[in-house]
């Protein structure tokens, strides 16, 4: 009791307990720095930055859905469709390049909107609704592209280029991360997502429009996925029909490693970024140490299980 003042000052123990993934990331980096001279070099770090940016941007959007106690399996496919339609817009249809990025973003947001509507109004569980969208959207990508890659517009290619020494994807990631964090923590959209994810029934009985919240978070997820898709395509100067296949799993892993709970109500953008970094650094490190890509998959799986397992234990301790 009467200890409000005591709580104020910095508590290292609770900081560490609350930022397990960050601690893990730091340990990982130090270990790799000792293990291989190639890790801590400018080019390698840029390389990691580029790799992490796509997953991170995708995972930022996904964080909204997971905070609201949903799941979005369609983000990889949505990324592909957005990139493809945007490429089609300029390259195939010859429409003005000036809006090609906006077109891609709109496609992403619309796809998310549809998933959200299916689950909010069609009463499908988000897992099922987004699973359906995963195949529907991938199919549409193939239809639009006729199964062939299409070169991206100049503005999309610019997203994949370098700005001076810094790769654009890293800049985009930082900017979108800041925006996402702001929206999640300061706006009514974000706060509603936390309430709905924490206890849907209590949120509804408090007058929070639960259905609208669900549709909104899926639209946000789609929007970010669309941007991620264009980052990826811009890097290659072409939108591939198989673009970002399987990325949804990495994105989900990033969010969950970052401390979000699949049960909803908990999640942070900074955590998601750390989660994405953990995955990218491990992949990079294993490559540098020339571990076979087969074993890499095993290692990544183990890391996900450990990270989330620790988190569950930690949360249990905090609760009682």
């Amino acid at each position: 009791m009467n200890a409000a003042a005591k709580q104020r000052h910095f508590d290292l123990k609770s900081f560490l307990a609350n930022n397990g993934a960050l601690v893990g990331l730091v340990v990982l980096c130090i270990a790799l720095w000792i293990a291989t001279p190639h890790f801590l070099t400018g080019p390698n770090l840029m390389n990691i930055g580029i790799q992490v940016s796509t997953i991170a941007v995708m995972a930022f959007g996904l964080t909204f859905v997971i905070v609201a106690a949903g799941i979005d399996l369609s983000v990889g496919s949505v990324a592909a469709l957005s990139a493809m339609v945007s490429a089609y817009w300029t390259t195939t249809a010859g429409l003005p390049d000036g809006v090609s990025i906006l077109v891609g973003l709109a496609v992403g947001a619309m796809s998310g909107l549809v998933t959200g509507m299916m689950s909010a109004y069609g009463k499908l569980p988000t897992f099922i609704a987004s699973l359906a969208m995963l195949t529907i959207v991938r199919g549409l990508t193939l239809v639009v592209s006729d199964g062939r890659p299409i070169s991206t517009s100049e503005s999309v290619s610019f997203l994949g280029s370098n700005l001076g020494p810094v790769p654009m994807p890293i800049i985009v990631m930082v900017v979108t991360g800041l925006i996402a964090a702001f929206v999640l923590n300061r706006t009514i959209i974000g706060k509603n997502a936390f309430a709905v994810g924490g206890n849907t029934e209590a949120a509804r009985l408090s007058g929070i429009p639960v259905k609208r919240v669900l549709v909104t978070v899926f639209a946000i997820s789609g929007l970010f996925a669309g941007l991620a898709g264009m980052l990826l395509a811009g890097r290659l100067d072409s939108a591939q029909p198989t673009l970002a296949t399987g990325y949804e799993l990495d994105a989900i892993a990033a969010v969950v490693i970052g401390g979000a709970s699949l049960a909803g109500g908990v999640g942070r953008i900074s955590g998601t970024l750390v989660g994405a970094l953990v995955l990218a650094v491990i992949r990079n490190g294993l490559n540098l140490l020339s571990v076979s890509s087969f074993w890499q998959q095993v290692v990544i799986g183990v890391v996900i299980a450990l990270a989330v397992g620790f988190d569950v234990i930690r949360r249990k301790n905090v609760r009682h």
Partner: protein
Amino acid sequence: MSPQPVLTLDSVSKSFGRIEVIHDVTVDVYPGEVTVLLGENGAGKSTLIKMIAGVHQPTSGRILLDGEPVSITDTKTSESLGIATIHQELNLVPSMTVAENITLGRTPRRFGVINRAEMRRIARDALAQIGLDLDVDTHVGELGIARQQLVEIAKALSLDARILILDEPTAALTTSEIEALFDVVRDLKAKNVGMVFISHHLDEIAAIGDRVNVLRDGGFVAQVPATTDEDELIRLMVGRSIDKQFPREPGVTVQNTPGDGDAAAPGSTAGSGAAQPLLEVKGLNADGLRGIDLSVRPGEVVALAGLMGAGRTELLRCLAGADHYASGEVRVNGRKLKPYDVAAATRAGVGHVPEDRKTQGLVLDASVAENIGYATMGATSRFGLVDRRGQKARAEKIAERLRIRMDSIEQPIRSLSGGNQQKAVFGRWFSAGSKVLLLDEPTRGVDVGAKVEIYELINEITAGGGCVLMASSDLPEVLGMSDRVLVMSQGTIAGELPTAEATQDSIMQLAVSNVHRDEEEPHAASADTGDEGATA
């Protein structure tokens, strides 16, 4: 009397992080006796019993069983030592049946396969003990909170424990179920079971208690016999005396109280002195409700009384937009309310305190401030940005008003005591400036002192031209705080009484009236129900 206590908490303390919530408390539990723990919300009663139940471990001190020190590391250990606990917040799995819940963790098996017949038998026996007539294959989620509480009690009884802990088991129950429970308790006393009982209803302490341990701020205050008079108990527990337990001031003559009514007041009524009802319900039919007509005028507090399952909760939920209704209309301030739309009801000035704070009222992982603020968050936001400072200020103000005991307004509401959580749910709607308050057991688990604070806020709302429709199983509260009583029975309004003329007996008579009538005429049409006069 009995020389050897069966269980002793020997100068235990408990801290969460840096905060000590129990300080050096010693409690003895004797076989065949009911040991009462009494204290304000947040005094530490639940924390104390959770140490016996294996949920928490004491930071220091010992627990003795039959004089031998034991360490109760988890709930399983507690059970295996012969201790059964009924926790304050329900711990049932809503998607499972009554029988599955009662046998949870010790499901009877035969050749590795669940023995469903045996499972049902155990459940039926357990329910029969407390006289609850219920299909054991019903899913628990379909039951109201009173029935869920009874299932929880049955579950604990079916363990045949030698020590039984009851943390506010009566808070959600009506008089007849409480009587049934007390019969069981008396029976267990005769069987030498040692019991720990927590309740904020002081009359219950006299009814079944033996000795009372009073706690204040996590410390031990006194041990007194259960025959101690109520005023003395209150003084021990609160540290001061309370002059008026029910400070009802009828608000019809709009006397403005000190300007505390802050925040965006949606749908404000300017109709002072107008006889026009603020809340009006016509011909409402829904699942379990038939032909409900009622109206509540500005300044009025109308109580809904009735037996368990009479339809009070369902009615309030329909009015709040939480549930669908088949036909009928609800008007607030003369304007028709869109059915099944809580957000629309909220905008029209309706506030609803639901019956179960844990599943319907609170986002447990969110902070106290956020939980108080959910109803004003949207209305006060600008350009989609949450008004963080305003939200916090409003929450702090209401928390102080209701004396919500906490360390910080940013602490997760999960870590507040039950009564303090309940105050937060009520505070949400007060701070939203709701004009039509639909309260479902608003003071469930709230201590005597804090109840008065809630009642004063109710007075303030009616004085400002608002109205209150309140379902309550606490008859003294009904008689002390309402202007009119509507008695429900079997989904209809069986009658109406001005509170001044109502007594516990006249209310109970009306509450059972339809039960008999229905036996002759199973599907009575709504036409023969709203006959208020026919009952006196």
